[in-house]
């Protein structure tokens, strides 16, 4: 059935059919913490995984289950887990695969929050991370240690938009006996299918393009079912009896689903970073129009990139569709539909001019998010990546004075006019004699 229908149909129908109890056509919102057992035997069977079903909404919920099936279908995975945020999804993936003493090899081109989790917070819990440039394949290989448990990168590295060569990096990971986890937030399955390229696990911040409306925070963790945990020999968490769940050996219970079994029965159960069913329902509303929105996001982004690239106030546009971007060739090959709609550019001029630019935008909103249906603007060095020093910022592909745009769904002509107006204001601010070079300022 799956290959009988295309992506757009899956975006609307995967995981959902008319409600058998009421006939409701839209996905019902099950705002219930818990679900009645048919009998004591049924209750015991659910708790012991003899039967499948819903017990308590921290572990699973019917509305969340639709979302989980839908993203798994769109990504080509075996299943998924909805979490409280993208960060919760990343934490769930890591904590399922390792504890203290574990080691991760990660790309330097990461969302600041992910970098923070890996470089500071997880170190406090005994999990170390080595950071390597996403395109330095020798460095990925060299960073592997006997205790390495995971490779991690972003499909489009935030915020410099380094395209991860998933086929190459996953091959290095697999040679080392570890899986590759990618954050596919910026691309969504409409722009790239990481599992088809060799990734084993995907996390999404569903807060962004998947929901698309800037109304909810949520995350998704998807498993391809491709990684052979037993053959690797590094993952006793999945291949040995787990006293915390009836002595279950997850890799025996399900040959390809051990990771998701443990992630739900341990990480979701014990850490508790579950998604609200209401959030799941709102994200489903977004996914239903994902193909239409993504097409508009990337076409609008193309128009804005083209406009900025020829404007005299713009020093550089950092989008992989530009031949001077270091991921240009990879983007041509791996992202034929477009290299996303979030990118940075460097303004020519002073710090005051940069401030004037941001403050004179009327349609673009100045805030800390991306992937909204509305166009957004932010200065990463002073906000999302403020913990990084200049060297780390450059390693992540951005300058201290870069401005990040997230292109929304407005009329492209209006966005261009808004940018024109703000650039003109920036130009005027320069003429008034403000001082201090914008590119080179660290805040």
């Amino acid at each position, binding site marked *: *059935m*799956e*290959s*009988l*229908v295309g992506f757009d149909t*899956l975006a609307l*129908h*995967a*995981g*959902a*059919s008319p409600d058998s109890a009421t006939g409701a056509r839209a996905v019902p919102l099950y705002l219930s913490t818990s679900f009645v057992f048919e009998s004591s035997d049924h209750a015991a*069977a659910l708790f*012991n*995984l*003899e*039967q*499948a*079903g*819903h017990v308590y909404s921290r572990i*699973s*919920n*019917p509305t*969340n*289950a*639709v979302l*989980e*099936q839908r993203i*798994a*279908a769109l990504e*080509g*995975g*075996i*299943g*998924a*887990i*909805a979490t409280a945020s993208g960060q919760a999804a990343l934490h769930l993936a890591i904590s399922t695969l390792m504890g203290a003493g574990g080691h991760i090899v990660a790309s330097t081109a990461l969302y600041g929050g992910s970098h923070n989790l890996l470089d500071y917070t997880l170190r406090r819990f005994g999990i170390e991370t080595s950071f390597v440039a996403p395109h330095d394949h020798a460095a990925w290989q060299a960073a592997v240690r006997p205790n390495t448990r995971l490779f991690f990168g972003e499909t489009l590295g935030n915020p410099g938009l380094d395209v991860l060569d998933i086929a190459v990096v996953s091959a290095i990971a697999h040679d080392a006996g570890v899986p590759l986890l990618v954050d596919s937030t910026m691309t969504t399955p409409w722009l790239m299918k990481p599992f088809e390229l060799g990734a084993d696990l995907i996390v999404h911040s569903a807060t962004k393009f998947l929901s698309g409306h800037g109304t909810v925070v949520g995350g998704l963790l998807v498993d*391809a*079912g*491709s990684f*052979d945990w037993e053959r690797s020999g590094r993952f006793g968490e999945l291949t040995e009896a787990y006293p915390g769940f*009836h*002595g*279950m050996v997850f890799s*025996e*219970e*399900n*040959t*390809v*689903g051990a990771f*998701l*079994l443990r992630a*739900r029965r341990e990480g979701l159960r014990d850490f508790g970073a579950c998604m609200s069913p209401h959030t799941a329902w709102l994200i489903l509303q977004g996914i239903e129009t994902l193909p239409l929105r993504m097409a508009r996001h990337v076409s609008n982004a193309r128009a804005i990139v083209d406009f900025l690239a020829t404007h005299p106030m713009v020093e550089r546009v950092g989008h992989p569709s530009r031949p001077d971007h270091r991921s240009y060739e990879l983007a041509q090959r791996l992202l034929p539909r477009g290299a996303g709609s979030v990118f940075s550019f460097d303004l020519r001029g002073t710090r005051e001019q940069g401030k004037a630019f941001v403050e004179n935008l009327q349609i673009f909103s100045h805030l800390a998010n991306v992937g909204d249906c509305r166009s957004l603007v932010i200065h990463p060095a002073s906000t999302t990546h403020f913990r990084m020093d200049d060297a780390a910022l450059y390693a992540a592909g951005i300058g201290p004075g870069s401005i990040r745009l997230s292109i929304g769904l407005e009329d492209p002509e209006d966005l261009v006019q808004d940018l024109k107006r703000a650039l003109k204001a920036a130009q005027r601010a320069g003429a008034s004699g403000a001082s201090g070079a914008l590119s080179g300022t660290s805040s």
Partner: protein
Amino acid sequence: MIITVQGEPLYVYTGGRIFDAAKPTMLFIHGVLNDHSVWGLQSRYFAHHGWNVLVPDLPGHNRSGGAPPDSVEAAARSVIALLDTMQIDRIVLIGHSFGSLIALEAASWMPDRVDRLALLGIAYPMRVSEALLEASVKAPEEAIRLVTRFSYSGLTAPPSALGPGTWLPGLGRALMRRVLASNPDHNPFYAGFLACDRYDGGAKAIGRVDCPILFVLGDEDQMTPAKGAKALIDQVHSAQVLRLPVGHQLMSEAPDRVLEGLRSFVK
């Protein structure tokens, strides 16, 4: 557990419980390019409700060594060898698809040892198209795509093998890829399809079985359409037939209803 059967290591899932000779025993047999895990939501239940369950990976599949059986008869011999090795006298046999033919053939060779026979997703004859046979050798990924396409009835499923949030077509495809990759020396895909296609002993076999037989058939089954079981059903004096509104992968598409059907059958 791994035990040696016919000189080769055979993996047998026991539902999370240790085998107890004092309990009755069920043996579940999977289909082409599958393994024990397709029975997870039925076998684990019985293992915790008074039964021994034996759910092997067929020879040459996933954790089991040796060559994959290239005939239903060869597979039936391995099943009986497993019972002999474990000194099990009486058994409830349950098979799905290729596994249902194996269960039928094995039951016909030892009618005095089989108390119940449940045949899920069965058709006889179980012809496999030349195109699919060829693809299983020359383009296995395409063959997996086709089997996935014809194995499921819809785009939604109840909580299943991994619990809620399971995407069944993806799960089935990943399992087939894994089983195929598990045996670089032989092709269990082609061997299984060939065994199904060539099996011509079904009519005789069912005539030799004298225990109660349950047929569990999917109304939306495109791999082994329900009407394909009619010839066998007509030969059975009082066959029990359970029709479910799902496709070929009954155990994952309707896990609770299959379980309930089996529970009623073995009561």
